[in-house]
């Protein structure tokens, strides 16, 4: 690993100050993504700010739901009684990710901020607009390796079928984020200009012509916590993850479903897909369609057709155009207990 400097902080304020003080400075949480990227020289930090000692790891009940601290470990969230009882979709999504060891290290904030697994991004000798943006600058990141997009016209089996651009077709690899997008989470952040709250579905962004920006966090902003509002979906929730092996692999396609049912009728739906876009892919239009519909195969097929509107394959990932709607139908069957 290239050498870098290290500092440990005990207050969010000190963490933010350390990051804005000097370019090339990064927050370090569990390290499971950052240290990997530093070893591969995808990221060449000047300094790491160890935030693991910040008091941001609590999971607590609030007046409107629960608040999960940004430094809560993925395993602690998945095992938490409140999460399992009220938000089983989140627990399922977390347990579908990585390995038991990695979930003991990975934090909620780090999981949201993890970079794509696009193999061109991971190899600095390959062209990649995300790693080597054409316009560089203090908040744009420094170019590292050739620009371009290796995946368009290259190996793109893992890549996006929704919302890609001519600059980048990478996907956000997180499972947890699919559940948080479906469950209307909100993200509390603090930065040099104070605190603000971002709806989860606005946290990540589509690549457009700035693929270097995975999300809408501003320079120096630190994620403090994630709020989840109470809902009526616990009984009819399901996270379906389709991958190349049964465990310990990233999603080809995943589906998060939460439903409120009255007998056989869907009263309210929450749906998001993973492995298909640069951000967790919330399906609001499909949710509206499902409202008031009977839980039947016909309904699910119509929902899947609607969900695939605007989908586009890039060659090697064309199979996702069939896999995604089938996964959606399957997840709806399981969640409605009509499988």
């Amino acid at each position: 690993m290239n050498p870098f400097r290290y500092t440990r902080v005990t207050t969010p304020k000190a963490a933010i100050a350390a990051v804005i003080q000097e370019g090339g400075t990064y927050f370090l949480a569990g390290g499971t993504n950052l240290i990997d990227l530093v070893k591969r020289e995808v990221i060449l930090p000047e300094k790491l700010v160890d935030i693991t000692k910040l008091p941001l790891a609590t999971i607590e009940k609030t007046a409107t739901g629960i608040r999960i601290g940004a430094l809560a470990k993925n395993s602690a969230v998945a095992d938490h009684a409140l999460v399992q009882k009220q938000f089983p979709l989140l627990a399922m999504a977390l347990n579908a990710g990585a390995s038991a060891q990695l979930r003991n290290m990975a934090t909620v904030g780090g999981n949201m901020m993890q970079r794509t697994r696009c193999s061109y991004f991971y190899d600095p000798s390959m062209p990649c607009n995300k790693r080597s943006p054409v316009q560089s600058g203090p908040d744009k990141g420094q170019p590292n390796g050739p620009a371009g997009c290796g995946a368009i016209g290259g190996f793109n089996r893992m890549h996006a079928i929704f919302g890609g651009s001519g600059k980048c077709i990478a996907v956000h690899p997180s499972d947890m984020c699919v559940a948080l997008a479906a469950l209307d989470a909100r993200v509390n952040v603090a930065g040099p200009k104070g605190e603000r709250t971002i709806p989860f579905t606005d946290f990540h962004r589509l690549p457009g012509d700035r693929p270097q920006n995975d999300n809408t966090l501003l320079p120096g902003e630190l994620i403090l916590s994630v709020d989840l509002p109470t809902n009526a979906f616990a009984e009819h929730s399901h996270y379906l993850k389709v991958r190349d092996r049964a465990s310990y692999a990233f999603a080809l396609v995943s589906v998060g479903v939460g439903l409120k049912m009255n007998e056989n009728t869907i009263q309210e739906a929450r749906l998001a897909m993973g492995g298909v876009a640069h951000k967790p892919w919330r399906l609001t239009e499909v949710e509206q369609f499902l409202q008031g519909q009977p839980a039947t195969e016909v309904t699910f097929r119509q929902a899947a057709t609607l969900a695939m509107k605007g989908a586009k394959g890039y060659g090697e990932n064309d199979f996702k155009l069939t896999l995604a709607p089938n996964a959606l139908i399957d997840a709806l069957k399981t969640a409605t207990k009509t499988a």
Partner: protein
Amino acid sequence: MADEETSGGEIENPGSSRRTFLKQSTALAALAVTPPAGITALGNGFPEKAAAYELLPLQVEINGTVQKLSIEPRVTLLDLLREQLGLTGTKKGCDHGQCGACTVHLDGQRINACLTLALTTEGSQVTTIEGLTKGDTLHPMQEAFIKHDGLQCGYCTPGQIMSAVACIREGHADSPDEVREYMSGNICRCGAYANIVNAIMDVKQGGAKV
């Protein structure tokens, strides 16, 4: 991956021991595959640059002994254990969180030592495979791996055993299927999986304290 390919065909190089050769060829391979950034670092006087980075203090309890150390920020817990403390029981497989060979317990939780920056363990307790044994008495999980032939080459075994102990302690060993899911972070390229699951189920069902 590139390292393996480059050194793979040349292991029989006469005149240097396999180990030295592997070290040399890995360094060369690293140079060969390292993108411009690495070369830039060399051009900038990499060794001098590295030397300029200060050593920072670290106090951490390892297998019951408090260690007061002085280390570079970029040192991982895995490299600290193996290179500086001589605790080579913990293995380096992939060095990227993908195989589980480096599994140790940090404050009682199983983690991958290869992606843990050593300085982040300040004030913590680390247990490695060397710390699992009590004197000459093997841990029940070690006994079970021997009894069930839960290994072939043995390279993944320390990680498997550390993970297996945690798996039972966490309460994730109630069925062979659950064991398979919660042990998926430990890859065995010899494919000793069936016997590993048997060993874990045996310890779990035997009710020994792990």
